[in-house]
């Protein structure tokens, strides 16, 4: 990963910040250069840019988004995902439950790919719902976060809640309404070796959900 972010990445981050008037709250941890996986709710195209811009500049160049290959592999999208933000592209499975041998092998390959991309110093931004929702509820998490946490147990898993970004730019809309938003970073989770997949994913989702209530102003 390069030491400096792409100039367009800085421009996108500034624009996203200006539109979303974002207030950043580090409620459960401080910004830190150690390896982390930031995972958050997802309902807007602004989500990644705002979350990324909420990090201090020195951390941004070491923090990469995880993006769906089937959506971010074409044309301008591919340029922004790959060249501008150095996204790690992963293949998402259409059906979470079809757990035949082939699918499992494929999943393992994707997790290896993420682990390799992280290396020893990079952090990731991941939206475990797998797709943008309506912003009203948080969808159940896909299992990628669990396998990645198990594969890299030393990494801190930082929950983040993005408030009101789905109202600023909902799915399917092109022009943003300039409301104000808020990013809250919660207390890091760690993978507890004997936890089941479902229990871990529930815990992770609850950690994001818990940050959604309006704190004292």
């Amino acid at each position, binding site marked *: 990963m390069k030491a400096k972010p792409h100039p367009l990445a800085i421009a996108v981050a500034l624009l996203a910040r200006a539109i979303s008037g974002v207030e950043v709250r580090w409620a459960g941890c401080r910004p830190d250069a150690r390896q982390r996986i930031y995972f958050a709710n997802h309902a807007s195209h602004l989500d990644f840019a705002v979350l990324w811009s909420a990090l201090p500049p020195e951390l941004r160049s070491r923090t990469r988004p995880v993006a769906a290959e089937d959506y971010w592999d074409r044309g301008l999208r591919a340029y922004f995902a790959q060249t501008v933000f150095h996204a790690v592209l992963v293949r998402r499975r259409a059906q979470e439950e079809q757990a035949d041998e082939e699918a499992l092998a494929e999943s393992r390959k994707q997790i290896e790919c993420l682990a390799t991309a992280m290396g020893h110093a990079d952090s990731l931004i991941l939206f475990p719902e797998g797709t943008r929702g309506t912003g009203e509820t948080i969808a159940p998490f896909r299992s990628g976060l669990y396998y990645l946490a198990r594969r890299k147990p030393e990494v801190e898993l930082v929950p983040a809640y993005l408030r009101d970004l789905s109202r600023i730019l909902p799915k399917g*809309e092109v022009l943003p309404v300039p409301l104000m938003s808020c990013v809250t970073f919660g207390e890091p989770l760690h993978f507890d070796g004997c936890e089941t997949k479902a229990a871990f994913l529930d815990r992770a989702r609850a950690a994001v959900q818990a940050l959604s209530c309006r704190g004292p*102003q």
Partner: protein
Amino acid sequence: MTAGWPMLKASLGGATTRFARTHDPVLLFLFGGVLAILILASAIGLLLQRTAIGDRARSTIDNLLARTRSWWKMCAIFALTMFMGPAGSLLLFALLSLLAMREYMTLIPTRPGDHRTLLWTFFIITPFQYYLVAIRWYGFFVIMIPAIAFLFIPLRIAVSGETRHFLERAAKIQFGIMICVYCLSYAPALLMLRIPGFESRNARLLFFLVVVTQISDVLKYVFGKIFGRHRIVPRVSPSKTWEGFIGGVLTATAAGAALWRITPFKPLEAAWVSLLVALLGAAGGLVMSAIKRDAEVKDFGGMIEGHGGVLDRIDSLCFAAPAFFHVARYLLVP
């Protein structure tokens, strides 16, 4: 707005150059007075800081100092835009409208189906309202939001197809645009009144309105802090007391009456107009507090240090501006 810009410049051009050249010397004198008050306030604040004992007193003084720092900035912006002529004041109030509406709309729950309606309110209705002020089209200016936007907003939401909480959503957006845009736009609209014998001095009326509302806010706060015992509506606002209200309204009325020479009002008229402005300012503070309590927040935002959001600062002005405009128009415009 882009198409209208040359028209706006043309319509304001004459007034702007006239204003800039004459530079109403009275305004310089008035802002000199504001400067003196600010220096006095800062001096008192620093003095109190030295003598404050105890955590509670200290935090009150810190807040007071933060408020005073913000007052310096706000007065500087107000003075700067006023010396830029009508276009400056107009742009300032248009921006305040947008910022206030941003805070308001963030706080009220809107649904995905409201997105396009919100785009209309921010990017078309609001600039258009201020454009009408700029071209001095009074007849259109007074009905644009209460009649046209009022009907358009529910229509646009209906077109979105989302019916859940329909009336509530429409009403909340209508209320927001009325308070933050329509009511506030009456303040710069004072610049479009054609008062015989008072040409190109309308900025003084705007100065008068802003100073009386803000002074009454400050004095309500000061009297409330010093003498406040009996709360007016404790469930809506624990900090608003009868002592603060009466002290603030009476002193603001006196201050407004003392300023009668800069206005085209007669002394007694200036006094009761100030009384009206101070009373409506209090009403604005109370109504907007009720909205904040319902939403369970303390302030609308955090943009102005010590004060909260833009809407927390201008709530009194939003309520006082329409009445002041219409009274001034009734009394002064033949």
